[in-house]
């Protein structure tokens, strides 16, 4: 057991997977010599060589698109989008091509590709670096969307992603890269997709969240507990596949639910969660379901991003409102 930051856990998992399977190759902008702008691939080019850790030209679409050909040729590409915001330049390759290759060829060609992308705000980056775009990719139909919030989960979920026969978008909350650290077993392990993590057992209300919003919810929980409220808290870990049964059980337990995420509200993944609960947990509900999200406005300049991202105060307020009978 070693205490690792999230970015360290990601790096060590990449290293372990490259040692385990020589078909695994890394590619992306600045992933080689520099070791990635966040050092997620630091030292890997030195260890595995330029053939397996490749600095690409600055062109997101051909990074994603060439991964299709690399995969069909028999390799297992793991490519980095330097920031999720820039993945829009490769959106058609990710959602039309990578995600649909298995379906459109009836399984004759497949894309065991992992796409790593940091995202999320509150790190004072310039425009377009911070957007949480997971709902756009959740409609990628054929693409799994994995969103760890701890170093432990990052290791187990990334190992699962690289070994998955299907493409996986692995989203890394960049504020958590160094702020989040926890105990990570040194031995190999994987975490099955579609199994949510119960962060805290409680009886009064269920809070559903994932990835970058997990630390915000943790802060809110401290406040709520101090007020004598006992929340049940779950981290979805993966939004595709979604742990429908786990989600329904978590909400049936309390009859109340607040969903917290960093992307805008309209057609955000919280809307999917709430619809599912309406369909499958309706008769256990004791109060309207509620969302705490960013507004339906573009991600702002960093000077005001603190007002954009859901705060723990807003989570506490939403919980209080949901608890009123």
């Amino acid at each position, binding site marked *: 057991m070693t205490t690792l930051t999230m970015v360290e856990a990601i790096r060590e998992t990449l290293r372990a997977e490259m040692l385990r399977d020589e078909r695994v*190759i890394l590619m992306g902008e600045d992933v080689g010599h520099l070791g990635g702008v966040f050092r997620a691939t630091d030292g890997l080019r030195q260890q595995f060589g330029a*053939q397996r850790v490749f600095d*690409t*030209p600055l*062109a997101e*679409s*051909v990074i*994603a*698109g*060439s*991964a*299709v*050909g*690399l*995969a*069909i*040729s*028999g*390799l297992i590409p793991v490519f980095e989008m330097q920031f999720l915001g820039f993945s829009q330049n490769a959106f*058609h*390759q990710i959602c*039309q*091509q990578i995600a649909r290759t*298995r*379906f*459109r*060829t*009836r*399984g*004759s*060609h*497949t894309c065991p590709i992992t796409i790593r992308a940091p995202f999320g705000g509150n790190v004072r980056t310039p425009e377009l670096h911070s957007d949480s775009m997971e709902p756009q990719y959740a409609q990628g*139909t*054929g693409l*799994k969307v994995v969103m760890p919030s701890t170093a432990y989960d990052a290791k187990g979920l990334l190992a699962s992603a690289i070994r998955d*026969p*299907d493409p996986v978008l692995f989203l890394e909350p960049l504020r958590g890269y160094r702020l989040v650290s926890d105990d990570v077993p040194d031995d190999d392990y994987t975490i099955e997709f*579609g199994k949510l993590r119960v962060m805290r057992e409680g009886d009064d209300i269920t809070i559903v969240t994932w990835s970058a919003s997990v630390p915000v919810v943790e802060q809110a929980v401290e406040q709520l507990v101090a007020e004598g409220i006992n929340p049940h808290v779950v981290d979805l870990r993966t939004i*595709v*596949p*979604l*742990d*429908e*049964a786990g989600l329904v059980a978590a909400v049936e337990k309390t009859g109340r639910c607040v969903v917290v995420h960093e992307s805008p509200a309209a057609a955000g993944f919280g809307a999917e969660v709430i619809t599912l609960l309406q369909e499958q947990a309706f008769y256990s509900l004791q109060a309207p379901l509620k969302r705490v999200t960013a507004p339906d406005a573009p991600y702002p300049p960093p000077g005001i991003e603190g007002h954009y991202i859901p705060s723990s105060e807003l989570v506490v307020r939403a919980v209080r409102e949901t608890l009123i009978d």
Partner: protein
Amino acid sequence: MSDALSPQFKPAAKSVAPHKLLGPKGKLLGTAKAPMTDAQALEALRLMMLGRAFDTKCFSLQRQGKIGTFAPLHGQEASIVGSAMALNPESDWVVPQYRETPALLRQGYPLEQIILYRQGHPHGGFVPDGIKVLQFQISLAAQIPHAVGLAWGMQLQQQDGVSVAYFGDGSSSEGDFHESCNLAGVLKAPVIFLLQNNQWAISTPREIQSAASDLAARAPGYGFPGISVDGNDLFAVYQATAEAVTRARAGKGPTLIECHTYRMWAHTTADDPSRYVDEKEEKRWGTRDPIDRVQRYLADSGNWSDDKAKAWEAEIADEIQSAFDNAAKVPPAGPEALYEHVFETPTSTLNRQRAAHLQEQ
């Protein structure tokens, strides 16, 4: 004031003359030598005739509502077949756009698969094991990065295969084309960019597509050579592709080949070219037919005759019919096909949706 700066890199004032070997009347030009044997020319001719006969039949079936919208290849047979003939189907990949039926057939892809694809049957997307082709691509130019990736993957795994990406003059305006050329140049990837300049992107003519004098002239900007060929000349296309394949296999990197050809039929079965095509230009291109000139060439050496033409037309019609018969044996797909091959193992969400859907039937 000093004299104005003179740019070091200037656009060419006019297009270069495309490389040609076989004239429209089927005669080798000047001192040109045939780059392929008569046996190879007959193999190519058969594929060209099959491709044209198949698309002609499909066009009429589309009008009867029996197949969906598709893009016919008429006029581009030499570009498609001449390039495919330069490949080794055992090691080399064909990465098509959507008009390249005979290139897929030469790789060993079954014609009935293409029929199923055009009928809208999901199994039409299936690629039999070991056949080195990608599925047709509807997103223009999106297949070009895939071809680069295949070439790169073969290079990394020390295989001596090459890949050929087919696309058109319209697609050469897409970002994926430029990003692909740029990466392939850096990698020295064994890929051939086979640009079929058929002069039209639906209704948009070549001159609106780009101010470049030649589309092949872009290649040096990416650090590799470009070749301009007469795309209706089977021999010229074959020779250019064979040389590009040799370069690629030798580790010397990509080549961009611009085949000057003409889309003699509509863009697709849904298009009405009478609204925009210049009849005179179309007639002029009609005199440069790619199939006719190979038949004339082969007739000169006694390898082609009217009798042979009749016999082949009948054989080809039979071959197409038997492919349609084989396609008809594939059972129709039902709603369960919606849920297959989304993932290797369906998610619980998909299983729930599938169960609900099938119960409703």
